[in-house]
């Protein structure tokens, strides 16, 4: 057995450990688990493929479906059709990944190693949220632009749309922004619930349940309440044109969604500080 150090610890960097170190560690954690990496790749490929595929499908069946509701809807707002499908699938992937990123730390016990290395518990959570959001922002913007460029090219003969049309560039960028914030949003819920299945149920319920509510509620104060739900508010940012009767502007909605995320992260950080891992 050789205990001799190759170098002595005196040569090590004595500067204080900062947020940068914690973020670097979180990056290593994310990239070093194969299932996470593959899920991210699958998210990109599947989202773009779905957007493009559905565009091709509607074009192929255009004449047969003409007069029906679908082509009319596409004509009215091609951006919504191009971005909506891919984002719907993408958000499911992001919700699950965001939850698993933290609940797997609890189920595998990695959280204890993590907390020994980063005793400041809030900074552990924030670094994770920040790194995940950054990765998602890059990937989701790639997805959004790729989906739009492919989708609009496919739709061109039937429903031409371009990035120069009013609201379209904001909507495409917005699709990426929405998914990038949805990551830490799900992560926060995962950190609060701490169990994979339970947390996924909560996130999916919050995100997809609000769509159902939206159809049930018409007008009154309940409408404002539903409009402020995370998915309802957040999804406005990737719609090029306001819906009739839309209560919030795109950026107001996105702001509310970010507010939800910040509050949930704060709750998660407080709980992480108070409860034992």
């Amino acid at each position, binding site marked *: *057995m*050789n*205990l001799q*150090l*190759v*170098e002595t*610890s005196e040569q*090590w*960097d*004595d*500067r*204080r*450990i900062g947020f940068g*170190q*914690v973020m*670097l*560690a*979180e990056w*290593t*954690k994310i990239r*070093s*688990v*194969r*299932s996470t990496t593959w899920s991210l790749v699958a998210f990109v490929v599947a989202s773009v493929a779905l957007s493009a595929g559905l565009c091709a499908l509607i074009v192929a069946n255009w004449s047969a479906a003409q007069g029906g509701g679908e082509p009319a809807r596409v004509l009215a707002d091609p951006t919504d059709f191009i971005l909506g499908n891919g984002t719907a699938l993408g958000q499911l992937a992001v919700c699950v990944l965001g939850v698993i990123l933290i609940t*797997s*730390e609890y189920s*595998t*016990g*990695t*959280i*204890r*190693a*993590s*907390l*020994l*290395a*980063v*005793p*400041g518990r809030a900074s552990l959570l924030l670094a994770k949220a920040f790194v995940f959001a950054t990765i998602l922002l890059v990937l989701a913007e790639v997805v959004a632009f790729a989906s739009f460029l492919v989708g609009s090219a496919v739709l061109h003969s039937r429903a031409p749309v371009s990035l120069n049309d009013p609201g379209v560039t904001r909507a495409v960028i917005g699709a990426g922004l929405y998914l990038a914030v949805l990551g830490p949003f799900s992560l926060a819920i995962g950190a609060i619930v701490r169990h994979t299945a339970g947390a996924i149920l909560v996130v999916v319920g919050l995100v997809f349940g609000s769509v159902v509510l939206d159809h049930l509620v018409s007008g009154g104060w309940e409408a404002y309440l539903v409009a402020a739900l995370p998915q309802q508010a957040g999804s406005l940012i990737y719609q090029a044109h306001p819906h009739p009767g839309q209560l919030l502007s795109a950026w107001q909605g996105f702001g509310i969604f970010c507010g939800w995320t910040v509050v949930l992260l704060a709750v998660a950080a407080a709980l992480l500080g*108070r409860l*034992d*891992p």
Partner: protein
Amino acid sequence: MIEVTGLTRRFGTITAVDRLSFSVAPGRVTGFLGPNGAGKSTTMRMILGLDRPTEGIATISGVPYAELEHPFRTVGALLEERSVHPGRTAYDHLLFLAQAQRLPRRRVEEVLGLVGLGDVAGRRAKGLSLGMGQRLGIAAAMLGDPEVLLLDEPVNGLDPEGVLWIRNLMKELAGEGRTVFVSSHLMNEMAVTARHLVVIGRGRLLADCPTSELLARGSEGSVRVVSPDAARLAGILRSEGATVGTAAPEPPDTTDLGARDTTGALSVTGLGCAQIGRLAAAASIELHALHPRRLSLEDAFMELTADSGDLTTLPRHDDDRMTDRSCRA
């Protein structure tokens, strides 16, 4: 230096750790003993800031863990439960820990070599054996070349070679002036590694003394003698001033058939093996077994924790008993 003052931890109605105060000095291996559920792991987790104490404080080098500027360079810890993601390689597990602590990447390779995992560095943790996983945990503890080591049951899952390795590692680290605090349920393992012992039962401090002192408490041994002519032998031994009683039956799990036979078995105190053997030979008394039974550290420990209640019914381990089996006629 680890200092624990009035440390208490309650889980609902259970008081897992009860007003515990002790300190662990550098330069020696300090054993942390207690029956299952005594509160060893809970105490260690509180020292590391993973569990919140209900009351009291624990400090390492004078400050609570959470306030250490370079935690891994001050204290390295091996926790009882595995804390590695099965899908992450041994190398990447250590790498993220090193990065979070501003330690050089080279150090990861160094500790992997140190614990003998250099060849499986790229293997995912789910493909590591129990012992390899334990070595990975020790590598993580050594990452920051810490002054203080906290090891919760480090020999768990290690083969005899591994046990020997960790034993030497701990002694060597303590020899370099580091603080080594190690919990174990193998009492006699502690007898050969630890120079000092902290014993707890039901969360309370039972002893905080040098190992030799605890061993001395059990040094008043007895000799177990089996003879077909036990009654006559007993008379002779008594006349030589020995105290003779009927030996308690051995535990039923014993594999030694001679020891299991309780007919004609005597428990003799006040005379040694040699004297008893000589007296028996002089009287032409046939002996079937002559077995010195110095109280082991485990026995001393059992005695010590006997008052702390129902948690003392420890399973006896065969490897523990080997020490008082070693001399047999």
